C-alpha cells in the first residue's frame, strides 16, 4: 500500500518536469489536465452508477463563463476567471442537477444528453451573444494583475493546473472518504437501503452532481485560456462521450484514474496525428472496448497492481 502515494507523487513530479524535456508537450498536457478535471467529474457520478452523456456542457459553461468575464465584462485575470467559471458551472450543475438526479439509469444519461444538446444548439445559434459557431476569443489573461507574454502565461498556467490537480484531487479524495461520498457508492449498490438509513439519495446525488459540474468548470476555464478560444463544439454530445470514455479508460476507482486516462489519450493523439490521423477514432474506440472487456479497473488499475495494491473491497465498479 505504501508504494501508491509514492507512485502518485512521482507521476506528478514527472508531469512537472515533462515540459523541460519536451517543450511542445506543455500545451498538450495542459489541455489533458483540463479534460482530466471534467473526466474526474464524470467519474464521480459513475461511482453512483450514473452515466452522464452531457457533461461536456459544464466544461463548456466553465469555458464560456471565463470568456464572457474576460471579453464582455473586461475582467481578465486568471485568478478571477477561474473561480468565476467554477462558480457559474457549479450553479448550472445545481440547477440542472436538482431536476435530473431524480432519474436513474438510461433516463439519467438521456436527460443529460438532452440538456447538453439544448446548450450546444443555443451556443451555436445565439450569434450576437455567444459568437455562434465562431465562438469567443480570450486574450492572454493577466495573473494577479501582472501582464505576461503568452509563453510565460502558458508556463504559469501549466504549473497552476498541476497545483490544482494535487489540491483538488486531495479535496475530492477527502470528499469520497466522507459520509457524503460514501453514500454515493451506496446509491449504486442499494439505494433503498440507503434511504432506510435516513440518508437522502436525492441530496447525496445533488451534492455529487454539483461537485462534478464544478470540476468540469475548472477544466473548461483552464482549456479556454490555454486554447484562447471557446466554441460550441465543447458541448457537443461526442465530447461528453469522450469524457466518459476518458474516465473509464483511466479507471474510476481512484482520483488519479481520469487524469491518467486523459493524459494517455492526449499523448497518443499527438503521436497519432502524424501517423494515423484517419484512424484516430478507430484506435480510441478499440482501446475503449479493450479496456471494458479486459481491464475493468482501467489503466490506473494496472498502476495499482504494479504498486502491489490488491485490496479492492468496497470499491465501485461500472
Amino acid at each position: 500500500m505504501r508504494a501508491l502515494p509514492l507512485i502518485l507523487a512521482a507521476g506528478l513530479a514527472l508531469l512537472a518536469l515533462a515540459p523541460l524535456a519536451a517543450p511542445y508537450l506543455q500545451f498538450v498536457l495542459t489541455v489533458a489536465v483540463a479534460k482530466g478535471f471534467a473526466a474526474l467529474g464524470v467519474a464521480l457520478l459513475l461511482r453512483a452508477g450514473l452515466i452522464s452523456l452531457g457533461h461536456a456542457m459544464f466544461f463548456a459553461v466553465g469555458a464560456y463563463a471565463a470568456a464572457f468575464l474576460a471579453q464582455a465584462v473586461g475582467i481578465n485575470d486568471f485568478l478571477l476567471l477561474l473561480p468565476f467559471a467554477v462558480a457559474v458551472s457549479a450553479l448550472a450543475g445545481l440547477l440542472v442537477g436538482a431536476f435530473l438526479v431524480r432519474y436513474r439509469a438510461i433516463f439519467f444519461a438521456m436527460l443529460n444528453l438532452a440538456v447538453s444538446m439544448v446548450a450546444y444548439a443555443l451556443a451555436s445559434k445565439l450569434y450576437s451573444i455567444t459568437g455562434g459557431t465562431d465562438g469567443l476569443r480570450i486574450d492572454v489573461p493577466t495573473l494577479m494583475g501582472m501582464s505576461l507574454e503568452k509563453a510565460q502565461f502558458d508556463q504559469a498556467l501549466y504549473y497552476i493546473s498541476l497545483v490544482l490537480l494535487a489540491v483538488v484531487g486531495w479535496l475530492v479524495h477527502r470528499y469520497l472518504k466522507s459520509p457524503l461520498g460514501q453514500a454515493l457508492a451506496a446509491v449504486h449498490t442499494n439505494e433503498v437501503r440507503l434511504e432506510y438509513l435516513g440518508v437522502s439519495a436525492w441530496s447525496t446525488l445533488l451534492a455529487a452532481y454539483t461537485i462534478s459540474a464544478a470540476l468540469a468548470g475548472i477544466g473548461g476555464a483552464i482549456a479556454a485560456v490555454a486554447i484562447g478560444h471557446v466554441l460550441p463544439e465543447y458541448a457537443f454530445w461526442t465530447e461528453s462521450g469522450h469524457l466518459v470514455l476518458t474516465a473509464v479508460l483511466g479507471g474510476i476507482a481512484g482520483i488519479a484514474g481520469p487524469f491518467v486516462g486523459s493524459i494517455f489519450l492526449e499523448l497518443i493523439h499527438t503521436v497519432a496525428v502524424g501517423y494515423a490521423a484517419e484512424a484516430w477514432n478507430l484506435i480510441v474506440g478499440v482501446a475503449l472496448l479493450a479496456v471494458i472487456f479486459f481491464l475493468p479497473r482501467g489503466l490506473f488499475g494496472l498502476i495499482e497492481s504494479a504498486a502491489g495494491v490488491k485490496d479492492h473491497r468496497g470499491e465501485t465498479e461500472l
Partner: protein
Amino acid sequence: MRKTSFMRPIAAAAALLAAGAAAAEDKPESLNLGVFTFMSGGPAAYGMPGRQGAEVMIDMINAEGGVAGVPVSATYVDEAQGAEGVISEYRRLSEDPAYGFMIAALSSGNCLALAPIADQLNMPTIGWNCDTHQLYLGNDYQFFYRPNGNTIAEFMAYALYFLDKNPDVSRVAIINPDYSFGHDAAEIVKATLKAVKPEVEIVAELFPKLGSSTFQTEISRLSAARPDVIFSNMWGGDLENFIRQAAPRGLFRTSVGVFALGESALQSVDVPEGSIVGVLGDGYWMSPDAQEIGLAAPFAEAYRAKFDADPVFPSVKMANAFLVMKAAYEKAIADNNVEWPSKEQLAAAMEGMSTTTMTGEMTFREDNDGVVDQLVGTVAKVDGKLVMTDMARYDGETMLPPLGEDPIAWIGSLTPEFLAAMPKPGSYE
C-alpha cells in the same frame, strides 16, 4: 512596487529573447509550411482545390530552385476537425522550430481564432482565403496578413453588380451559412442595398448550419417568399447541394441566383445559366489581367496535368498566397541584407508590401488587409463549358472604407451616384 520588482527579470528575459530571435538566421535545409484547408466533409469540395493549388505551386516553386534557394514543403491540416483541433495543430506546428511560415486558414472562423495566436507565437501567417472584415476591426496584428481582401469589398461588388444587371429588382432573399462569413455578407448586402437602392425589400433571411446536408425546407421557404434575387455565399458541398436541390424545384426559374462563390462550383454542378457568380477577389485564371501577367496559364496547365480539372478560384487564391509568401521572403532578405530572414523580419517585410500575383496587383494596407480588385460575372455556356461572362472588374481601393472607419456606417454613407460611377457588367472582357 512588488509588481515592478517581479516584472523586471521577466522583461529583461523577454528583451533578450526578442533580441536573439530578431537576428538573422542560417538558411534551413527546407522551408516547412503549415497549410490549413478543409479536406473532408462537404466543405472539402472547396477546400481540396485549395490544397491542390498548393501542391502545384510547391512543385513549380521548387522546380525554379525554391524560395531564395530553399526548397518548400508543406504539412496539410484539415480544418474540418473543428477550431479546437485547428488551434492545437497550429500551435503544435508553430512551436516546432522546423516550421517557418503558416498559410492559414480557409474559414473566417478559424482566421479569427488563429490571428491572435499568430501574434502570441510570433509566427508569420497568411490568411489565404478567409475574408471576414471583423478580422482587423480594432485589432492590430503584427504577424497575421491577409492578401485576399475582405467581405466589405467582395459583397458590395455583388450587390452593385446585380443592381446594374437587374435594375427593377425589388425583392431579395438571403441564404448564407451560419457563421461570421455568412452573417457579415448579409449585413453588407443589406447595407449596400439600403444605401444605393432603398426601396428593395429583404423578404427572407436564412442561416442554415455550415455543412447541412439538406435544404429542402429552406427551399420551400424561399419559394414562398417569391424573391427576384436569391443572394447566397454558401460554398463547397453546401453550395453544390443547394443548387442540386433547388434547381429541380424550379427556384431558379423565378429567381436569379447570386452565388458569391459560384465560380468554384462551375465544374462540379450545373449552375443555372444567368446566375451571377464571382471569385471573391480577382482570382479568375482566365481573366484578361491573368492572361496579360502570364503566370496563370502555366499554373493551369500544371494543375490540369496533375488533377485533370481546371483550377478554380480557391486554387488560384492559394497559389497567390504562395506568391505573396515568396515575395515576402525575398523582400525580407533584401531589406535586411541577410541569408535568411527571422520571423520578425518576415512580418516586418510584409508591412505595406505590394506585389503582382497571378491575377492582379495586391497591396497590404496598414491594417494588414490586402487590397485586390473584385471580379463578378454571369454564368453562360461557352463551348460546352460553364464560364463567367459579362464581367465587371471593380477597383479594390474604391470598394474599401478608409482605415479606422466603421465599415457598415461607411456603406450607409454611399449614395446612388456611387453605383452610377461603377464599371458596368460587360465592361471587362
